[in-house]
């Protein structure tokens, strides 16, 4: 199916998709410092992906979006989250051992590397939300046409 969008929309999409993506990545990676976090950032990045599907059309999206990759990455996001939660299992499930004694991630509060497992979990959730929303929207976009 051919894209219906005109040249202006496509050009604007080319300009804004990277900006939305970078802003989303910022929201995800600063989840422990500023408002936002994994879900909000992941949804923002998925917004960039949806803009891509709308502006460039389904045929272009079919070439670039691999179903198996997205579904595997979604699983990976969940696994990383679970793994971070299990790191402190010696004390308790979800014990933030990276903050209490772990390497690197126990810096001065307020800096980027400060919140123990939180940045890892934010990245994992961001990945999961982005791939999940993209797969859902793409699957709906590919659904059978209105009348056979």
């Amino acid at each position: 199916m051919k894209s219906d969008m005109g040249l202006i929309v496509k050009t604007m999409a080319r300009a804004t998709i990277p900006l939305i993506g970078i802003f989303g990545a910022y929201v995800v990676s600063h989840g422990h410092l500023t408002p936002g976090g994994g879900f909000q950032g992941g949804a923002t990045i998925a917004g960039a992906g949806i803009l891509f599907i709308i502006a460039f059309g389904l045929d272009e999206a079919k070439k670039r979006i691999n179903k198996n990759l997205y579904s595997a990455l979604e699983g990976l996001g969940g696994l990383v989250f679970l793994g971070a939660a299990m790191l402190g299992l010696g004390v308790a499930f979800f014990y933030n051992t990276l903050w209490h004694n772990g390497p690197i991630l126990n810096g001065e509060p307020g800096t980027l590397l400060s919140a123990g497992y939180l940045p890892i979990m934010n990245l994992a959730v961001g990945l999961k939300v982005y791939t999940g929303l993209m797969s859902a929207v793409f699957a709906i976009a590919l659904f059978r046409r209105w009348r056979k």
Partner: protein
Amino acid sequence: MMLPFLIIIPLFGAFSMPIVSLLGKKVKEYWAVIISGATLAVSAKIFYTVWKTNEIILYTLGSDSPIGQGVKFPIRIVWEVDLFGALLALTIAFVGFLAVVYSLGYMKHDTGLEKYYTLILILELGMLGIVITGDIFNFYVFLEIMSIASYALVAFRNDTWEGIEAGVKYMFVGSLASSFILLGIALLYGQYGTLTMSYLAIKIAENPTVVAKVALAFFIGGLLFKSGAVPVHMWLADAHPAAPSSISAMLSGLVIKAGGVYAVARIIFSIFNPGLHAYLRAFNAPAVDMNVVGWVIVFFACLTLLVGNAMAVVQTDMKRLFAFSSVGQIGYILLGIGIGILAYGTKAGELALAGAIYHIVNHALIKALLFLVAGAVIHQVGTKNLNELSGLAKRMPLTTFSFIIGAAAIIGLPPLNGFASKWIIYESSAMYNPILAAIAVVGTVFSLAAYTRVLFTFLGRESDRIKEAKEPEKSMIIPMLILVVVIIVMGLLPWQINDKVMLPTARMLEQLNGEYIMALLKFIGGA
């Protein structure tokens, strides 16, 4: 400490399923079997620990103590597992495991199986979370996990109109019910400022306001929806027939128990403890009148067991008949819980609760067996219409045998497990109020009539539809036979099981000395 693995293992299985399924067709099926088998082992170990020590396990997420630094109240999510929770976790993991094994044969003609196995593990995870949690918001999250997975599984065969119709109906009704529960939680949090169940119990006893009563009403309303009690059972009669049979077995055996009657019992006995409030009333202090709650539950229980069983008699669709029979059996369980509230602290109340808990386990096993039998018939013959089927006994002897055992057990014939639990419920309701016992017996008469009709389907003259029928493959037969063996063995030792497991469970749920609250208070110290 084994407890977190009850959540970690199915969660790991569900998250890794999309990656594992890239390895090949068969791998994901075996992976699901391994994961649910490991969950079964963990839940058996936890049940054994709790049963042996007879103490409530309190597990804190994120730290070794639920109490915050410098404050005197719990700030973290706690998981609080008493015998009731552990017993249900064992039942859930057992039936879930058998349903996964059954799916190997039953689902092999369907597509999208990696989603199916992910969802079935998520469904199991949600139910296990509900029965172990001691935090009311955590409870809501697990309830939603379970509900959303079951909406998706009911509509899994999305090329059939009935799957979509039942899924949409179930989703609309279920979301409404969940929002009731969320509203109740929001009200309680706004009033009392805590989400930990046992701390909430203390706070409500200190100051039982109208808000607490309204929240309790929302909880009971929402949870009766989820358990399929009568005025709001209509989703169940559509959802169970439309789902794949392995899922019907889990929905009917587990989902309406974990998300419905278990949660009703947990919220009433752990947050609004009848004993605590009766004690307050004795001193003329403000308290929630739990007798009203008890009568509300008994009223809906009587309605449920009459209407559910009576509707089962007139069905011509085998799975729809089983679904209505599930509604009827939920009535017995609610009756036991209701009398447990009304006759709190007496012999009759304790017996009624034990009977309700016993019946939860028994009905989970029996109804799982019956739905697996129905699945085998549909899979081999291709119809579930009772008018087209008759005389299956010669072509499918093992399936017929399983059905006869299941039907006899659910009616409550003496050598099988359904007898003991129903007997205890009759006995305790007769001790409390003979009219209730009479209503319960009338419900059983309807149930007997319904199952006798199905029996003729299996034993009658051979019809044309089934000339070609033969036994299903091993992976479908073996789960049915395991359930048959468990039902017979449990039926041979009814009073031993009742004395050793069900009565201690009922006592622990009743918490006459506030054990559920004490498990938390010992961290605060001094109290």
